[in-house]
């Protein structure tokens, strides 16, 4: 005769009942939400998912994050380090946007940011919302090397490591405009980087846009609406040149900065971006190391 043990029954129920409750943590508990306030590391909020040019074709651009990085990293480097390996294809250029959220080309609005610098002006459309805040710059450390991986970043001329000519790299922050039709087709998207431009004491936070409307009787009309201003700071072009004394002095790392001082960014889709091409190194694979990307 099998005996009934209360302990057995209790154990069975104790084991079983919590099972249905054991699910994933709630979405709101998985990350801290709200605007980004103050200086920030780009890799904490933006993902290099927006591969462009030849990068739109799988395997033309591969991204290593926090592995296979150039060592040693720049002194005091923070955030993730990256290695981009670019094998030129038919487009002959490639680049990447660090977007929020990943893979966002303008489907959704960007991440709210509040810079550390009080610009001492207000948004003319929201005069009661307090002063606008901005950033001085976005910064990055970079190096460019020949592929295959393992070749030292320099002008080596061996049978294994091809010699790379100097190469221009382009860097930017913001500038992601989903309204531009994609080169390979597809519809334009509604959103873009938003920010106020502050120039000689003049603040511009919105522009007028005329859109087509349909009247109740079916006829077409137009109306004008205010939309946020496009946050579009200029880009910085730097030559990857390991013979540059500054690069040598910095352990082989070049450095670039994007000037953000005239802007009060509001919502950011593209936290950072870079591009390269093979004009000076036709069809030669290239490795680009990026590190210490931050807004400050």
């Amino acid at each position: 005769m099998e005996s009934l043990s209360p302990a057995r029954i209790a154990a069975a129920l104790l084991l079983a009942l919590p099972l249905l409750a054991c699910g994933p943590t709630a979405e709101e508990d998985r990350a801290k939400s709200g605007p980004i306030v103050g200086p920030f590391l780009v890799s904490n909020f933006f993902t290099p998912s927006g591969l462009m040019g030849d990068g739109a074709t799988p395997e033309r651009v591969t991204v290593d994050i926090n592995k296979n990085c150039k060592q040693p990293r720049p002194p005091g480097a923070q955030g993730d380090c990256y290695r981009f390996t670019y094998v030129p294809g038919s487009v002959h250029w490639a680049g990447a946007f660090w977007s929020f959220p990943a893979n966002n080309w303008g489907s959704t609005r960007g991440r709210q940011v509040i810079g550390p610098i009080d610009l001492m002006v207000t948004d003319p459309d929201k005069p009661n919302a307090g002063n606008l805040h901005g950033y001085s710059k976005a910064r990055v450390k970079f190096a460019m090397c020949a592929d295959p991986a393992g070749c030292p970043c320099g002008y080596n001329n061996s049978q294994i490591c091809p010699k790379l000519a100097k190469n221009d790299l382009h860097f930017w922050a913001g500038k992601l405009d989903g309204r531009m039709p994609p080169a390979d087709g597809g519809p334009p998207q509604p959103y873009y980087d938003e920010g106020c431009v502050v120039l000689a004491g003049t603040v511009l936070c919105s522009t007028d846009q005329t859109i087509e409307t349909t009247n109740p009787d079916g006829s077409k009309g137009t109306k004008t609406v205010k939309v946020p201003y496009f946050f579009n700071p200029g880009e910085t072009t730097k030559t990857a040149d390991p013979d540059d004394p500054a690069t040598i002095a910095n352990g082989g790392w070049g450095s670039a900065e994007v000037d953000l001082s005239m802007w009060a960014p509001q919502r950011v889709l593209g936290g950072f971006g870079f591009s390269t091409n093979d004009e000076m190194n036709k069809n030669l694979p290239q490795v680009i190391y990026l590190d210490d990307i931050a807004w400050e």
Partner: protein
Amino acid sequence: MLKKLSLMASGFCSTLALTSYAAAEDRGPEINPYECLGRYEAATGNRSMGQVRAELEKRTHPLFEGPEPPTVKAMKACVVAMLKSRLGDSDAEDYYQMAVENDPEEPGYEFWYGRYFSGFRGARGVIVESAEKHFYAALKKLDAKRAAHKFRDYHAVVEEWTHKQLMYSYQEDGIHLLPWFKGYPQHGDQGLNVPDVSISGQFHVSKDTRDFFRNNEMRLFTNEMMFINGSYRQFQIDKGQLYAIARTPLRVRGEVRARIRQNAIGAVDLSVATETMKNGQINSYYLPPGDTRSDHGGMTPSSPAWRYEQQRRGEGLTPFGNVNLFEAGLGYERVFPLFPIMDFKLKGGVKYFDRQGVIEFLEFDHEKFLGYEARPSFSRFMGPDKLTLDLIWVYLDVTDVDFGVNSEKGRGKYIRAANLEYAIYRPFVLPSVKNGTLTMARTPTRGWYWNLGGADDRDVYGTRTVVKQDAYLGTRYEGAERWDFQLQGTYSTSDLRALDLNTGKVGPVPGQPMKFSSVRASGYLQYRLINPDAIPGVNGKVIAPDMVHVVVPFSVDKGLSGSCENHIRNELTGEDTNLSAPWIGYGTAADCYKMYENVRVGAELWTKFYGTGFLGPAFLSTIGYDYQYFWTLKKAVHNVHMSIRMGWDWHKL
């Protein structure tokens, strides 16, 4: 499933119910234990449960009439035990025990006692540990009878049925490697306490829209379509891509399991498995296969997806990617008899997975992670019927990705499910034809089962969660003769929830609706060419066929709601851009949830046999063909699948 002792045995038993009088002993006459079965059948045949209860009352008030010899008492107690088993009384075991105690030399009562645990009791499986105690005791007593020259003809039947029940109890184990313990034919009781090792193997191959775990393919295809169609990915899906999504990749799975079974402990499993899917995984939802937007010989610009597919073909890759999976697991299983409350099956384990091919954009990357599962089942009688609750909890601690921001790197999969089954074992008054006349007759069944359940499947992608849920109601009727059928309705949903990091609110992702619901009507009709319940003994010296069923399965999937992206809403301007044009040919984006509606019907052959010539493992095979037609796509698909198992896992059948 409750395996009642087959009614067909009655005729057999009537010839065996010989009552002989041994030499006058204090214990009383030597009684054929099959008389117990005969009396039980006489008391239950063509009777309602109320009448059976009345029969029981007559036999228990009083149980014994005056001073009766112990062997007579044993037989009477056995009949009461069987009636109580049939009625679901929790004290049935006491009467089996009483029968054994009153006639301790008779192996037949030990057999009936064991049969109670292998046929009536249990939660999703035999209570092996309880059943085998009595089966081995029966074998030991049979040996004693043989040694004492008291081995009667009917003892040969007891012996054969006991071996069959042991094979049945161990059928999920595979082949027991130690022939002198649990392997068929078992000898005495030496297999009871020694840890025995068994090996099971399973092989599955299919070219089918459904995977081996029978996930809902309409929901899978619709989710893939909606994800591709989202503005985070390709957005404008091509007609050819829609068509290509309904696919039948080649899948192959092999699994080997070593099981250590010991009576006091239960079953401990070590398993390894490999699984491959060829040409079945979408590697980039920006560039899914099947795009027809070619360059038309250089006359028009081709689409990126078309170019990518050409590139893959040029590199010797298939349009869809391959998925490879390796598993190594440690598991535990045991049924605990907790009567009079319930029987409880504890099943759980941990598995190591090495999976390659499912990370978007990184089809050659491996994920190595652990998975945990617990599958408790609870079962108890409700009168003659049985109520069973199955719970499933699975957590796959999928490797976090090493790209993206920290909050988006997390990966994981959670499955929680519950199934409540009510099995009606009482006979029904059903129309039947007797002597050419349609009449209503009380008809025994092998069970009429009703199932109600739900499943919740959540895939975590950082701050996003793909939620898939099912709710179902089904019934399965198993006739006493050759026909069975099952019908089930399933309501399925999917959704994608995400945390808006700006606002902290959780809701749908713009541009990735993935909100979808559908309903499935499914079932099968089954004809038993060989009925396992009609074979209580061992019917073959080398191979013993136990079951051959012809099955006609069918299903219909119908979309209920959902919408693909057919417009872009700009909240900044209030502008709404209609983009429905790409859907021409297969309806509109607004009704894209109907895209993979389908009907499926097939024919399958299910077989089971025991390898009685080589230690008695159970083999189960399934081979089938299903025709499936996606009427919106106008696509016909031919599905074929085959499985061969030596031993198995009940939950994966």
